[in-house]
């Protein structure tokens, strides 16, 4: 037996949530050709099928791209500090991809090792995440190579499985998820058939459109990274990178930020903005010395951080295999093509910087 909900009832649930002055975020066509996780004005904006994934990630819900950390006011020579307002609005992230939700427990480590970031933690507590298990992937997806899956439960309060007949199976994973769906589902004999650990072997799901999901030999990648810091290929792997940072901004797990003062003569605020390790200025010292002065060093940093530095500290890759870095890259770089080349290189196969 399972619990199911009709698409109509799901939309009613979202509208009821919004009706109480709460925030809801979900995949929405914000303009022709652009699907983003965006604040929903009404449940009808929510798009639940016909795409692989939105172009951004849900991290914005817990880690806004621009956020006030504290304020200050000037009274002559006196300075007064103003505490940041604690977020209070509950929010529902609905229709998130599992590769987005899985990023949240990964980010939890960053914002809580030793020093606890209340800006992040408060938003995280106020957020309920309902994911939609994947039925399709594209050539940029590689979740199954990095310990994730089309129905990765990490970070989800509830997961929906499209049953293909206008209904969805609901599986709740937390108190928040159970509270959200309480009284809104009905029992059914239909059981979601998304128990699938790789779309290449998907059982009973809609056929994959582009063949099997790309698979990486992460053991070979790890072996390379153990000694590949000075490898001359980093230059080649970054040669066409323009340093735009689209990979980092649309990545569910990238979390680097800058902190700057904004304001004027009467006061202002310290704000944090998203930053990206692909930018020249990211590590530039005041002296002009830059430990990562060329793009190859910056590309190397991104790959090492995701697949060696973070895993050594917290046990999982800083990546859920969503493929957004490549999908949004103007020159089709990103994690997957670089790792594919690293794998070839590690196995002594000829490498070319792959074009996807």
């Amino acid at each position, binding site marked *: 037996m399972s619990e199911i909900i009709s698409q109509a009832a799901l939309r009613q649930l979202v509208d009821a949530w919004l009706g109480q002055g709460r925030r809801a975020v979900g995949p929405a066509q914000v303009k022709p050709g652009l699907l983003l996780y965006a604040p929903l004005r009404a449940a009808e904006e929510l798009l639940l099928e016909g795409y692989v994934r939105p172009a951004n990630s849900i991290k914005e819900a817990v880690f806004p791209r621009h956020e006030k*950390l*504290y304020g*200050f006011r*000037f009274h002559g*020579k*006196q*300075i007064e*500090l103003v*505490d*940041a*307002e*604690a977020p209070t609005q509950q929010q529902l992230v609905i229709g998130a991809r599992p590769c987005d939700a899985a990023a949240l427990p990964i980010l939890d480590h*960053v*914002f809580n*090792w*030793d*020093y*606890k*970031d*209340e*800006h992040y933690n*408060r938003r995280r507590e106020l957020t309920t995440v309902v994911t939609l298990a994947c039925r399709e992937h594209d050539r940029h997806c590689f979740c199954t190579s990095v310990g994730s899956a089309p129905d990765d439960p990490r970070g989800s309060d509830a997961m929906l499985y499209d049953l293909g007949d206008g209904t969805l199976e609901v599986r709740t994973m937390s108190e928040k998820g159970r509270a959200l769906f309480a009284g809104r589902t009905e029992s059914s004999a239909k059981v979601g058939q998304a128990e699938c650990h790789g779309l290449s072997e998907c059982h009973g799901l809609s056929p994959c459109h582009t063949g099997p999901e790309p698979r990486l030999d992460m053991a070979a990648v790890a072996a390379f990274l153990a000694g590949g*810091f*000075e490898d001359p290929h980093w230059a080649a792997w970054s040669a066409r990178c323009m340093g735009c940072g689209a990979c980092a901004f649309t990545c569910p797990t990238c*979390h*680097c*930020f*800058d*902190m*700057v*003062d904004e*304001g*004027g003569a009467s*006061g*202002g605020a*310290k704000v*944090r903005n998203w*930053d990206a*390790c692909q930018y020249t200025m*990211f*590590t*530039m*010292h*005041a*002296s002009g010395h830059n*430990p*990562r002065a060329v793009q190859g*060093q910056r590309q190397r*940093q991104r790959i*090492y*951080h995701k697949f*060696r*530095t973070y895993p*050594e*500290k917290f046990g999982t890759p800083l990546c859920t295999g969503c493929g957004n870095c490549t999908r949004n890259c103007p020159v089709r770089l990103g994690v997957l093509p670089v790792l594919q080349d690293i794998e070839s290189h590690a196995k002594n196969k000829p490498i070319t910087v792959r074009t996807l």
Partner: protein
Amino acid sequence: MTSIYQPDLMEVVEVRQQTADVKSVRLRFRDEARAEDFHFRVGQFGMFSVLGCGESTFNICSSSNWKDFIEFCFRRTGKVTDALWSIDKNDTVGFRGPYGNAYPMDKWAGKNLIFIGGGIAMPPIRCAIWYALENRQDFGQITIVYGARKVGDMVFRNELERWAGYERVRVVSCVDPGGETPDWKGEIGFVPTVVERAEIPADNAVALVIGPPVMIKFTLPVLAKMGLTDRDIYTSLENRMKCGVGKCGRCNCGPLYVCKEGPVFTLEQLKQLPNDY
């Protein structure tokens, strides 16, 4: 809501101009209770801010035994240090910290200490020097080698003589050839050469070496020749930081975050790190 990024407000107690472009600043917490419970260990750093302008990372260059104020030292280089340049007594500066690890002064007890600093790198050594002098009985012979490009570039110059006045302390100061003034009484030469000919007692010794990369590079072989192992040689790294608390993602040197797992490293640790600094 409390924020780990929110600074404490500190009153500027004193500003001293050290060189043409370096100043040191003494600060006191505006909040008495905070001043009471504030503790740090020498070698740690803080994030110092001119509110409305920005925040920068500096070592706390006062001794952790000093309770009336903390001190930092900066060179006028960029936006924040430009704003710091014009602060004056009674002004307010923001401070977050202390952050990072510290010099293992306990571990250094009973050993001969060799401090080697170049140019603006003296402040992060100075805190350890004062700490050692204030706990003089805990340490063996103390040798301080301080080099600068020219006499006018030396910071805390007036303190060199005071240090030399302590028992079992030898201060060797040097300037690069051509950097001397007619009344210069110190050595003339580059730090590595000066260290080599200074005949510093190196048995049971640890060295703290901070300075420009080129100085460090050529000083290390000299120390090795003197018999110091990679475990006996310490340095303090600087990398650009924003948060200071291991989140903003830029100061890492390979797997280690300089803000949390540094800034103090032994040469042994450093040799295991990739060249990312």
